[in-house]
């Protein structure tokens, strides 16, 4: 009986999961990203030349010591490439769910993130 239930569940999962990803077609204005965003003690600054920096004051880091990244917004996909001093980069890809002049929300496959503009 357990084996039967298991197979049913396995068959059902693809069906259920196939309906996800409804924000794929949304398009956001990247100029709204320009500026400094804050979430708690965590900050991001997006520059118009698609560079940016991030820092967290909880770790006793100020903006002049912030770490750099480059960013790209395509549709609703926001890609951040965090630059390593040692060479290489850390790619992070998010799906924007809300972008206004004061609010930025995005998510990846595991977490959601929300920021408010502080400029």
């Amino acid at each position, binding site marked *: 009986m357990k084996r039967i239930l298991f197979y049913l569940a396995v068959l059902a999962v693809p069906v259920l999961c196939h309906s996800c990803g409804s924000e794929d077609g949304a398009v956001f204005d990247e100029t709204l990203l320009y500026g400094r965003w804050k979430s708690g003690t*965590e900050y991001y600054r997006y520059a118009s030349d698609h560079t940016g920096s*991030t*820092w967290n004051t909880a*770790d006793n*880091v100020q903006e002049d*010591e912030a770490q750099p990244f480059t960013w790209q917004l395509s549709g609703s996909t926001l890609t951040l490439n965090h630059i*390593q*001093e040692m060479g290489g980069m850390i790619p992070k890809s998010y799906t924007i769910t809300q972008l206004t002049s004061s609010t930025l929300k995005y998510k990846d496959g595991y977490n959601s993130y929300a920021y408010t503009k502080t400029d």
Partner: protein
Amino acid sequence: MKKFLKIFLLSVASLTLMAVIAIAVVLWYVLTPEKLTPIVRSQAPGYIRCQSEIGQIELTFFSTFPKFALKADRLTLVNPLDGAPNDTLFNAKELIGIIDIRSLIKNNELIVRDFRLSNGSINAFVDSLGNSNFNIFPTDSSQPDTAQAGMIFKIIDIGNVDLKNINVSYLDQSMNLKAEAHHLSAGISGSITDERIAGAIDAKPFDVALEYRQADSSVLKTEIRNLSFIIDGSLKAGAIEGQLHINLADILLQYGSINTGIENLSMTVNGKADPEKISGDIRLEPFSVTFGFGGETYLQNAVVRLNAAADVNLSRRLIRLKETSATVNGLQLDLAGTFENDTLHQSLIVEAQYKFDSWPVKSITALIPPSFSSYLNGIDADGKLSSEGRIDGIYSASSFPEADLRILLEKGTLKYSAFPVPLRDISADVNIRADGKTPRSCIRINRFHARTPAGSSLTTSGILNDLFTDIHASLDTDLNLALPEFAPLIPDSMKITAKGTVSGNVKSEFTLSQITRMQPEKMKLSGSLTLADLAVTYDSLSLQTDRSTCHFALPNNNLSSTATGFVFANIRATTLEASKINTFDASLANAEITLEASDVRDTVKIPDIRCSFRMNELLAGADSIHIAASGPAGNITVAPRRDAPKYPAVEIAYSGDRLQADFGRNSATAGKINIKAGVVNDPAKKDMLLQWTPKGFIDMEQGNISLASLTYPIEIPSVRMKFDPETFAIETLKARINQSDFSLSGGLNNVSAYFRGDSLLKGEFDFVSDMTDILQIMSLTNGMNHKEEEKEMIAANSRVYLVPKGIDFTLHTNVTAAAYGKDITASGIKGDVRVHDGTLILDGLAFATPAAEMQVTGMYRTPRKNHLFVGLNLHMFDVEIGELLQTVPVLDSIMPMLRSFGGKGEFHVSAETYVDSTYRVKMSTIRASSSIRGTDLVLMDGQTFSEVAKKLRFSKKTVNRVDSLSAECTIFRNEVDVYPFLIVMDKYKAVVGGRHNLDMSFDYNISVVQSPLPLRLAVNVKGTPEKMKFRPGKSKYPDFYRPASRKVVETQELELRKMIRNALMGTIIKDQ
């Protein structure tokens, strides 16, 4: 016979009686006073021109037996003259004269056989016009006016003139002279002829008063008491010859402010004189003299004696003294020579010799009048002073005679209150030659010697020239000074004490002006001084030596450089110790120091100094610093820079055996050291360190440095290094710290620029080591050039390592073995290690650990104390995963799945983060990417595998072995993204991907992409390692390894993996 005698006697008696009777008849009846008196009175006007009063005249025989004499009971001569105090010229109560009547009558010769004058007075007067009241004798106008013609008589022969109680008064208004003699008694005899006048006077004691008033109203007053004298002399043809002997009791003489008293004078004068010449001798028996001038008594009852023989040439005004000796209070002066008054040139020509012998100095100083005695206050001198010499030459307003004197002092003593060291055994032999001109005038000190009670002595000889301009001295002095004797010379306020002796010889040549102007550069000083048992303290400073000698020369005649001609000194010391309380102490043993220098007082010019030194041992200490050097030797040269003379250049050469320096609990030693360096100074630079730029080399062996901060000392077997202002070229530097050893060679650049602050200190070295303890190296360099507060942080937190700032060093390492702590070891380390201004860079460092061959490129930067950057590119080849986790424990947090694998693989990671001062990771700053490859891995965690295999319906026969593994992951902050990777197990292939959080929660999806079953099963694994949940889920990566059907997202994921992998692999350094 008797009858004849009787008849003869009767006849004589009869004749005598008849003669007596006849004389009596003549006296009493023929030539009675009544008959003689008118005759004399009538004849008197013929012989005298003034008024005379003659008493009764009688002829005497019996009272003048056996001669007849005329006796007047009163004679008064009156010759009034205007202005005369008395009209009476002469007055006597009794006058007796025995005159040769026959000679007077027949030959016109006045022969006075006996002349007695008693109780009379003479009042002589000369008015202002020269008229006198004693010019009473008539002159024969018929005779020529000659001396002979003036004489009334052909011969005047005075046999015996006897004066008794005669008062004489003489007043000469033309000469302002007044003289009085009281109670004069004298015997006078003499004769006057045409050719000759001879006579003798024997004056008995009488009193004389003399007053002479000069034109300026100054008055000379003299009183002579009990004067007696004998004069015996003659005058012939203008020549006087005779003898004078004077005795007197007292003379009082007053002239202006001069007061002189003479007692008991006895003088004998023999001599002769003519109009051209006077010669004779004078002898004064010891008499007492008191002499005062201006209220000052210069002589008080001084006993004076004089013996003199002299010739006087009147026409030349020349006096020739022969065998003259004068004595004052026993001080005898012998004098001889000539003194000529040259009126034509108004000069005095002197040619004289003198001599005195053994004059007691005390007797000389006793002659110094009180008003001058103040100059001798505090001076107590004695000794025997002798001198002889000659004075030749002309004394005038423009010239001074040449004096050639020799002065001897023996057995001298001197105490002077201002010089608290009494002198004794003073002896001196000095020649003085002076003519008031330069350069002939000089003082030659043949010998001067003096001793002190404690044994100090001074002996000098030499010559003093240019006495009348700028005295030039050339002296040769031997001295032996016991310093404690001279301690009272030093003011108490200076707090100086001195013990020991200073002895030696000093040759000096200088002028008085050089002394007063302090011009040692113009003086000549040389000699040798020996300091024995010397101990000198000045306040808190002290200097001691048991024996030191100092040879010195000023100027330096044996110069090694033309510029160091000012002074030379060579000091040799058996021991020499110097110290300052609570500050420093230093001692030298068997030291020799030679110094040459230019004039260091010239503050405008950089001095030239050459100093060489050599000693057996040097010990020095200051505060907690102590230095001990064995056999140090070398030289130091200071000179103006050739290109910039106003700045100094210093050359230093040092060589020595063992050198040990202790700095508190730190110490450094060297078995052998050899340094040669030049240092150029440029004071224009602001920083003091920058003002000095060195150039040279160091060669040191058997060095050892012990620092309290280090557990083990640093051994330096050898160092050879050249250096200049910009570069330190290390030929070789070998060092050992505990088990660590290394050898450095290379260069250090930008040294002066570094000290100027213009550049980093750059260095590039080959670092070769058999064994290196990395922690020790880090401890050595921790915090270098950081701020004090940062160094304090190091002290408070021994874990933190602050990379040195201000330097840019590259080490090309070749390390056989290295250890980091107890657990981490590596071998075969090759690659570059760079320290760049607070940043540590490991550039492609390849090495092997027990776990794997590794290559690491790292960066450790310390921008500020609480914000430290750590970056690492690590490549491990053929690594045992278990040992990998042990080597890099943080990987267990980043990729906890690795703990589930066993076996070997390759691992690449690029990670960076900031940490705080306690090395706590600042999670928000973590950036990392990694790639791992493995084959034939064993899943260690059987329970997890069983759960997953169960959910994925793996065959029960499937073993927990992963055939191959290829995975990439990234870390951003606390998110670990595991990019989908393929696991091949037996017949199964599965793709694993997900997120792992650093709080150890995770969310993975495992999708089966190949299995015996037709289904593409998937399972989600969530939770924490302690509480995992396995749930069937959607397969996220069903087509991940099927390019034909791969979706866009999956393609992007693979591209990212490829990019990450390539980025990581690009950091591998090839061909090491």
